[in-house]
């Protein structure tokens, strides 16, 4: 019987296989950041261990870094210590670091592909759940905990139980691809399968609706696989994938011969079967807006907020969760999404802060101003994205519209740096999690696409971007 792409990658990375036990899997790429690594390096030191393959490991600082003027010292002392700790660890263990002043610094999941470090068919890990982003290139990319970070540093391997396979097939064509984006596709998927729908599986996104997408858009899809509970998400590589990675700073020298080998092997066989399947038809999908406190609590922009009864479909626990969520979000069921006013706009994060995201958002705001009383910011995903955007003049468009134009980092996606919501503030955010307090204690997050966030910034409330002239 045929094999899925995931099964092929898995099998080609088995170092040790045992009956009824996890497999020892080789890791081709290890990405390290400042928050989930200090304790792992400490563990190595305590046991007198070294990093087995520093040449397969890279590091950057992204979660903690201020997005304001980089020439100023970091005021938060605990952040400063964590950033300094990563510098020292990389120096001590011989790991390549893209530090705060590097032109390659940025969110680890944005810089990996941009630098040609992410490769099709490879295994990639990082102590961060959004590692699934790299799956867009046909890699098996897993988020791991700090103990596993230490294990990979020491051995370049991980003991892993083989996940099940999950086909998410996206069929059809969007009527207005500038208004209905990759973000709306993935939010629709999560709304349907639920936040635990992918638990224990690796999703392969397939179908016309996926192959039509650019690499930046595929990364948005794979990025949020974890929000559907999946261990990872991936897309089979195609010409777009191979073209994207060609000629980047760390693209391998023998790239063309690698591409030749990938073309033959890195796809799911036609007679392969999946353990689970979900099909989404995108012919008629609408822009999505989350209304609750997990990414499954999402509805169409032209819908009212559902009642907890309708949302929960008879599940008492889900109903209770929806009631709590509405209370936290200070919203009532029946309210139309377009009537919800916002205080803040955040365009950023590993989900939606790549160049294409910024280009699309800039088209919405060109020649207009952010609504009075709304504070809006753009945080490019990497210094390279920032530079490319500035070369295109996007920074001027945003600044002229009264957006703040910041330095690269995770920023208000999780608010570990000074960029946070105040209690009660409501934010249209292009990030990935609307958990309670995620963007700041008491803050209220609505997950949307970059164009939806930009339109909300101008109007002061959510707007159905399909009504705007976007072509």
């Amino acid at each position, binding site marked *: 019987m045929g094999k899925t792409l995931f099964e092929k990658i898995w099998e080609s990375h088995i170092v040790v296989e045992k009956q009824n036990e996890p497999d020892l899997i080789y890791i081709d790429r290890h990405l390290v950041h400042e928050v989930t690594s200090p304790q792992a390096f400490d563990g190595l030191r305590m046991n007198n261990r070294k990093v087995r*393959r520093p040449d397969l490991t890279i590091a950057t600082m992204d979660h903690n870094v201020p997005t304001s003027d980089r020439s100023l010292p970091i005021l938060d002392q605990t952040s400063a210590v964590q950033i300094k700790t990563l510098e020292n660890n990389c120096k001590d263990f011989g790991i390549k670091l893209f530090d705060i002043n590097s032109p390659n610094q940025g969110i680890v999941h944005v810089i990996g592909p941009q630098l040609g470090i992410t490769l099709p068919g490879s295994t990639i890990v990082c102590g961060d759940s959004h590692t699934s982003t790299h799956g867009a290139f046909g890699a098996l990319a897993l988020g791991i905990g700090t103990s596993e970070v230490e294990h990979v540093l020491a051995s370049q391997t991980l003991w892993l139980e083989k996940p099940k396979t999950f086909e998410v097939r996206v069929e059809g064509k969007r009527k207005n691809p500038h208004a209905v984006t990759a973000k709306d596709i993935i939010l629709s998927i999560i709304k349907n399968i639920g936040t635990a729908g992918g638990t224990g599986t690796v999703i392969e996104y397939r179908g016309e609706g996926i192959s039509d997408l650019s690499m930046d858009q595929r990364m948005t899809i794979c990025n949020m696989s974890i929000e559907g509970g999946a261990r990872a998400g991936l897309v089979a590589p195609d010409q777009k994938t191979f073209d994207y990675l060609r000629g980047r700073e760390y693209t391998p020298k023998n790239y063309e011969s690698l591409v030749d080998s990938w073309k033959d092997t890195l796809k799911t066989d036609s007679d392969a079967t999946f353990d689970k399947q979900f099909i989404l038809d995108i012919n008629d999908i609408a822009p999505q807006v989350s209304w609750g406190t997990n990414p499954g609590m999402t509805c169409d922009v032209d819908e009212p907020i559902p009642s907890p009864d309708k949302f929960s479909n008879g599940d008492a626990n889900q109903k209770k969760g929806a009631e709590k969520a509405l209370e936290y979000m200070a919203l009532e069921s029946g309210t139309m999404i377009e009537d919800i006013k916002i205080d803040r706009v955040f365009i950023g994060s590993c989900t939606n802060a790549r160049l294409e995201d910024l280009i699309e958002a800039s088209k919405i705001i060109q020649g207009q101003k952010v609504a009075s009383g709304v504070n809006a910011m753009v945080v490019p995903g990497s210094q390279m994205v920032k530079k490319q955007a500035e070369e295109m003049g996007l920074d001027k468009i945003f600044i002229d519209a009264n957006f703040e134009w910041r330095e690269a980092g995770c920023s208000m996606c999780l608010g570990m740096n000074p960029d946070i919501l105040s209690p009660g503030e409501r934010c249209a955010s292009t990030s990935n999690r609307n958990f309670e307090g995620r963007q700041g204690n008491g803050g209220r997050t609505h997950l949307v696409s970059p164009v939806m966030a930009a339109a909300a910034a101008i109007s002061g409330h959510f707007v159905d971007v399909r009504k705007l002239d976007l072509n």
Partner: protein
Amino acid sequence: MEPFENVKSIVTPLDKVNVDTDQIIPKQFLKLVQKSGFGKFLFFNWRYDENENMKSDFILNDPKYDGSKILVTGDNFGCGSSREHAVWALDDYGFSVIISSSFADIFFSNCFKNGILPISLESKIIEKLLQETNAIEVDLENQIIKTSSEDISFEINSHKKKILLEGLDDIAQTFQYKDKISEFEEKSTVPSVL
């Protein structure tokens, strides 16, 4: 890691679904560079108000549950961020068993690295355990939870069970396969980054 020992304690019922790791340990506490001392920050935003006064309506602040080692909770516990700090916080606070109808994958895996036993049981058993007021005993060797009224058996992967019971150091185990890893590297086609 210390070997896992049987636990007897009252249960702390946290009757919520989809408890994410941002709630278990909010981001402001992820800046620490050590593994210890996270217990006081566990469920911080649910335990304390903006002036850091204890919220009386949150279960962990009820003195009845002081010293409880077993947390019982709803579906999809530990979803979201991969932060192992969530497990460190639960451990440091004193929990060594988490019982739920389901767990998020990364959280589940992180538990075993820190000597915490996550047990998955059917929702209807969880509902009963949420009401349990007497101490219960968790016996990992025999895979049984003993309550005042019944014995409930639970499943666990034999490899994971061994890791907990023996308190094994993962990396030391893996180093027994160093030759295999080297062999793999010799035939590996993926080029190095640098």
